[in-house]
């Protein structure tokens, strides 16, 4: 008696699964993307070589504001909306709007101001390379020797 109901759902699930295959196919044949992969970059002075998304979230939500060597952490945001920003926030696991809420709370509690939002990826690359202890994100193909790549976000 319960079978029809279940089968209805499973039918729907199958349909969804069916839907996934063309997407996977599409992704596999799509060239590395219009924007390619996104790199989490840092000033070469930072005392780490890799970073996880949770550690990155701790830095961006301003919960942790010092590196291991007690040097201050500076994070940069990107102003223009686009695939690079989307990919980065997806990696963080927060929406841009929610990130703003977090920053607003920090601001109201006097724990610090929101990160500076830069106007372009070139600015981001430049600022990160010049600011000690800085973290930011640009397309992998834009990365230069002036910055350290801590993580590469696989594009979707």
């Amino acid at each position, binding site marked *: *008696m319960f079978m*029809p*109901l279940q089968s209805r759902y499973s039918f729907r699930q199958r349909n969804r699964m069916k839907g996934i295959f063309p997407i996977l196919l599409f992704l596999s044949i799509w060239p590395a993307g219009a924007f390619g992969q996104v790199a989490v970059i840092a000033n070469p002075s930072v005392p780490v070589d890799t970073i996880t998304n949770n550690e990155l979230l701790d830095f961006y939500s301003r919960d942790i504001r010092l590196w291991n060597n007690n040097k201050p952490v500076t994070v940069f945001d990107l102003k223009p909306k686009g695939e690079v920003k989307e990919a980065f926030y997806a990696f963080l696991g927060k*929406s*841009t*709007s*929610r990130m*703003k*809420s977090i*920053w*607003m*709370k920090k*601001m*109201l*509690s*006097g724990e610090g*101001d*929101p990160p500076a939002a830069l106007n372009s990826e070139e600015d981001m690359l430049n600022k990160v390379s010049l600011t000690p202890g800085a973290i930011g994100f640009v397309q992998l193909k834009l990365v230069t020797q002036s910055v350290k790549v801590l993580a590469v976000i696989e594009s979707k």
Partner: protein
Amino acid sequence: MKFKNLKLGKKQLLGFGAILIIMAAANMFSIRNMRAIKSEIDEVTSNWLPRGIAISDINKNTTNLRLNQLQHAMATDEESKQLLSEVMIELIDKINENLDTYVKLKTESESRNLYSEGERRLFTEFDIKWERYQELSFAFFALSRENKRQAAVELLNGEAQQVFNDFGSDLEELVKVNQEDAFKAALRAEDRFYSARAITLALLIISILLSIFIAWILVRYITNPVYELESAAEKVAQGDLNVQLPVKSNDEIGHLAGSFNQMTNALRLAREKTEKQAAKLQDQAKMLQTTNRQLEQKNQDLQTTMNELKETQEQLLLSEKLAGLGQLVAGISHEINNPIGTVISSMDVSERCITKIKNSVNDKKIDWGIPKNLKILEDNVRVSLTAGKRIATIVRSLKNFAGLDESDYQVVDIHQGIDNALTLLENELRDRVTVNKHYANIPKIGCYPGQLNQVFMNLLKNASQAISDSGIIEVKTSRENNNIKIEIADSGRGIPSKHLNKLFDFGFSAGETRMKMSSGLSTAYNIIQKHKGKMKIESQEGKGTTVLVFLPIEYRTERD
């Protein structure tokens, strides 16, 4: 395979199975629909309504936030600014909570394809505006912190006001859309409920009709034949054996009908046979009656014949007796003739002797002839005396034998009877047969002596005739309990064993020499039976025969 050829169990299984399946299908359909209706109602109560509430809360909390921001801008002292900041942090947390709730419900709703495109568009726009409002808030707080009140209030009343109004109307729109969607969903659920109810009712009616149809088929294939069988059985019970059932199916009932037909056929045949036999029996009874009458007639005839036979037998007995008497008379004549001859010849000689003696006396001549003649005369007298005595003995025996005849019941010594018989048979026995007598001391018995004498006569005569040349007859008497036993054994030729059981038959005879006494043993047997005695014959062929006669001593009763 046709339905009607299935076994009863399979028929019922199929019928009831079909009914069950139909009922189960109807039930499943209604349960499925009820579940669908329930899930739709659940969708409204657990998704649309909380979603609407979340949006309303967001609207309320963002409005509150904006009020606090305005107060923050107006506040002069750090303390109240600090307090307002804390309130705002709480509000932001609440808004985020509301957003989390909404997004979670949205995801659920999307997974069920129930999230409307209008709502999605509105929420996306709201999110963008809310983000923009927060960005503006950063600038506002920076100004407010630096006590640039004028600039801060301008910012709030300028672009921020616009953004706030925009997302506020978005939120209101969202609530509206949400309510409309919920209402539509409720309507859909209602629609589905009514249609499901209608379909369920229809299914119910169809299943009832189908069940009735199936039941009818079952009745047709199972119950009706049973009724037919029952009424047929009743007819048979009432004696109508011409009942035939149609064999419609190949199931147990069909087989039963076949067997029933066979049974009635067999019964009919049996009844016909019985009737035929009864008729035959009646005929036979009639015949029997006729035969019975004939038999009666014949019986009467037989009785007559038997009476005649009895008379004949009696006559025969009489004639035999006469024959025996004749023979006896002949023997006795001879027996008497001899001594009489002797007497006559000796008297003749004596007469001559007497004449001679007379002459001599007359001549007065006494010579040597007188003593000689006297001697002869003396001898003759002695011989004559002996002969005369002999005759006297014979006559006495004869008298005894004959004089005691018939009727008179007397108490006698049976030795006398045996002796008399031996005397009368002496002529026959004398030279050939030695008779050895062994008489024991036995009491006298009551009897009909004449009849017993005849028995002894017959038995002794038989014994004598059984001896061809020469032999011995042993006559032995003894007492045995309450009987006296008379044993007459001869050393004659004996009797073949095949004849032993026919000995007492009337008229039996095993040899020419016995022809004359053909009825001897039979007569003897009858007489012994009359005396309540027994008679037994033992014989070995070639060695001789022994006849045993037992007579009760107690036999005293006078016969009527």
